């Protein structure tokens, strides 16, 4: 016994005995606990044992134990049932487990003892169940709200991203349309007169003199935004140039030269006359979904220029043979 107990030594001794042909089976599939591990485990265990439990913990334990005992039938526990002399006496009187006491005709006879429920406070009847019900409802409501919000949030984010993507595509399509339109006009003008030099072409492109109303509504927004930006830029620039004085301030004593010297001569910033005017057509177009606007633009480009926005290329004829279709998905 002692040799067996002495652990690692025995293994060494047995190793010396090379005549012994017993093949040992691998008996240690489990990893051995290291010294530190054991020490820690022991420490933990003793701490758990030694700790003085709080009153609340004790009460909880008591209640748990009580509930545990209350829920177990004495007849079902084979150990108590076998040893119980009371049960043996009852068996002699003809008792069978699972059958109630009393007359056979008595259908209401109980098999289980009456339960015990502890009242711990002065809460009125129905308070506990009301509390439980409220808690449950609250819980359910909370759960629903969180869930609904989650769905909402994800959807909203997705929609927002989608919208932003579409808007950028719309803007891109607008730029394409404007460029193409401009090229076409130039070509038309070139074909018509061809007298305009490069420089004038440049300026024309940069500073359209066309009133906004005459620009195709499809990309009018783009032009409008650009114009507005340009105007704001100039106004800011003018403000910086002027001598610290509000541009709107009119000194009646100043003459034209003064004004020039001070840089307060009235500059008309609007490059297009009707920039400030109401534009119901544009508003209606901008009111459309970005997807619809994009669709309109794509169709316009195809119709007018045999250009597919998705393929990013112009086709030689209006059949546009190699283009898979109208929508982005078709180009995936």
């Amino acid at each position, binding site marked *: 016994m002692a040799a067996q107990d002495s652990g690692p030594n025995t293994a060494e001794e047995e190793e010396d005995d090379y005549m012994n042909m017993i093949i040992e089976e691998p008996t240690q599939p489990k990893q051995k606990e290291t010294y530190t591990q054991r020490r820690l485990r022991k420490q933990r265990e003793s701490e758990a044992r030694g700790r003085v*439990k709080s009153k609340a913990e004790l009460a909880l334990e*008591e209640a748990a134990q009580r509930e545990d005992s209350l829920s177990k039938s004495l007849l079902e526990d084979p150990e108590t049932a076998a040893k119980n002399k009371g049960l043996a006496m*009852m068996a002699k*009187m003809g008792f069978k487990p699972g059958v109630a006491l*009393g007359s056979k005709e008595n259908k209401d006879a*109980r098999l289980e003892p009456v339960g015990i429920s502890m009242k711990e406070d002065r809460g009125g*009847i129905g308070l506990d169940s009301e509390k439980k019900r409220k808690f449950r409802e609250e819980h359910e409501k909370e759960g629903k709200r969180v869930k609904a919000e989650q769905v909402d949030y994800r959807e909203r984010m997705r929609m927002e991203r989608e919208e932003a993507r579409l808007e950028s595509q719309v803007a891109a399509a607008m730029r394409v349309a404007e460029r193409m339109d401009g090229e076409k006009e130039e070509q038309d003008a070139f074909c018509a007169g061809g007298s305009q030099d490069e420089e004038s072409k440049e300026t024309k492109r940069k500073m359209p003199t066309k009133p906004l109303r005459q620009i195709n509504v499809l990309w009018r927004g783009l032009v409008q935004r650009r114009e507005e930006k340009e105007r704001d830029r100039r106004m800011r620039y003018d403000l910086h140039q002027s001598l610290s004085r509000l541009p709107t301030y009119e000194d009646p004593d100043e003459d034209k030269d003064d004004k020039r010297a001070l840089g307060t001569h009235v500059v008309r910033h609007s490059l297009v006359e009707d920039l400030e005017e109401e534009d119901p057509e544009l508003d209606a177009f901008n009111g459309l979904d970005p997807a619809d606007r994009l669709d309109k633009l794509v169709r316009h480009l195809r119709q007018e220029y045999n250009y597919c926005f998705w393929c990013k290329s112009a086709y030689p004829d209006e059949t546009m043979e190699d283009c898979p279709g109208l929508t982005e998905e078709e180009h995936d």
Partner: protein
Amino acid sequence: MADRRSELDLPKAKRAKLAESDPASNPYLAHMYEEDVGYGNGYGSRNGNKNGRFEQTGLSNFQRHASTAAQAHTAEDGPGNPFNNVPLSNQYFNILKTRRDLPVHKQRQEFLDMFQKSQILVFVGETGSGKTTQIPQFVLFDDLPHFNNKLVACTQPRRVAAMSVAQRVANEMDVKLGEEVGYSIRFEDVTGPKTVLKYMTDGMLLREAMHDHNLTRYSCIILDEAHERTLATDILMGLLKEVALRRPDLKIVIMSATLDAQKFQRYFNDAPLLAVPGRTHPVEIFYTPEPERDYVEAALRTVLQIHATEPEGDILLFLTGEEEIEDACRKITLEADEMIREADAGPLKVYPLYGTLPPHQQQKIFEPAPPPARKGGRPGRKVIVGTNIAETSLTIDGIVYVVDPGFSKQKVYNPRIRVESLLVSPISKASAQQRAGRAGRTRPGKCFRLYTEAAFKKELIEQTHPEILRSNLANTVLELKKLGIDDLVHFDLMDPPAPETLMRALEELNYLACLDDDGDLTTLGKLASEFPLDPALAVMLISSPEFYCSNEILSLTALLSVPQIFVRPASAKKRADEMKDLFAHPDGDHLTMLNVYHAFKSQAATSDPKKWCHEHFLSLRALQSADNVRSQLKRIMEKSELELVSTDFNDKNYYTNIRRALVAGFFMQVAKKDPTGKTYKTVKDDQSVLLHPSTVLGVDSDWVLYNEFVLTTKNYVRSVTSVKPEWLLDIAPTYYDLSTFKAGEIRSALQKTMDKVKRKQATKRTR
């Protein structure tokens, strides 16, 4: 007569020691010797019933079981008392007039028809119908028990009811209480040889049945308030069902106040049923819109609101226990005084009502409401704050408002953890209706239920569980065995308990050696059943002479059978505790109680016991009743030839002997301290318990014996005394057979003790 004689011979084997003493001196058997003892006084002889030489009375021409209401009416009209021919008084005729106004009176003939036709009759009459006082008299006029040397018995669940109803009926019949009409309750028998009608507690009738299995003394047995379903009533019903078969001449009337009477009908093989409406007024019921956070506070608020806003009429508030009631009474009085001062409310009188209240204080509830404070002022009102004894048993006129928080303190028992305890529990729907009905006795009333209507419908059970389902049945099983019922499994009870409850009871009685392994009564068991005590107490008392301390154990048993002897008013807790410390014994509460009793019997106390008790914060009433119980038990001990001995007080074993004697009865109620902390674990059931704060235990004891397991939010053991494990092994070896213990701390501790004892014995032997 002859067969009654043989009846006497039959149970000889069962009467063990008692039978050896003169059976004639046994009060339970007195009726069997009536002929020898009082032949000259009984009706039998005076009326000469055997020879047909009747003294002419109003009943002389009556045909037994063939009389009519009209005949009875004439006989009642006198001029002589139909039972003793004494001229009837004016008071009699006054009462007679009101009696004839009672609802039951209208159905007298109907009742007689049914009574005569069938052996068992179920009678339903709501409170106020007059059934408790009138039906037994109807029976007397038809059953004519005095012509056959028999009696009519009417059982009541409560002692007070038995006494007061007997007094009332004696007045109604114009006889002296204790003569034609008497009562019999535990420790008090007010009957005589002329008695024809006996009111008694159901427990008393059961004890009589233990000695006279066929209840031969009675020609008719009326079980009143059967709806209350006390343990004794349930057992009696089971017994009567059997007796009815053996005695076709015995008439049985089951009286109930509730509509659940069909259940009684079914149980008694479809016995006929007669229902009499009560005299009640409609009661309007109010529910709260929301459940209450604090039912006591809500109750107080409601009572004060009724006082402030509702018209004249008294209030009945139901609460759960003495402490709660006293506290509520104090608070209501305080608040009402303020209302009177500041809001000119009418005067308000508050009366408590609970079982342990002294009778003269209980009587106070019948005092009329106070008059207005000044002429033309707002009317006065009385408030009764009571437990559920105000629910059915006591009839208080003038109640118009009932406040019902929906709780009562109920006994609960569960065999799985072997705990019998009083717990505050929700009442049943039937109970709630009964409470509401209290408001409609004098005029239409109102009932304020302090719970929602939904809670009433969903949370309350239909009927209160009968006591038999909520009790430890050890005592009942002992009684049933004594009643000659051997097959307890198939004994036809109306609501048979769970099998586990019976199993526990049999097991406990076996450990106490009251039943042998075959389930038959042992000599000790027969002896124990003579005592009106729980088997553990009885066994402790019977074995006490072996420990040379039967005098002391007798006192202790009496002290444990009465309500709490220590008084600890909320206003003087500290002072009360200091006083208790004067009596404290380091070994525990039992010895402390014994010290109190000895001091109570000493010179210093007997000169003015009232003052002495008051000064020492002790309940005079409890101590006096302990004294009374002690003398009753002493009588039974003497009759059973149990020696009354004491160890010399100066002997060092004086207290040890008493503690050892305690173990002889209470070895099943022992707990061992946990190695960590303050908690104890009950032996075998492994329930964690704490010592009750009231406990005096000067020494840090590993093993304690307890009298009571109290269930609250914490588990407490109350009335605790320290014991030694050696005693457990020595005195109760069967229970402390280590092989029956689960492996664990308690088992190993006992094992250690056992080894120690063995070693000691071994060394002794070698020496």
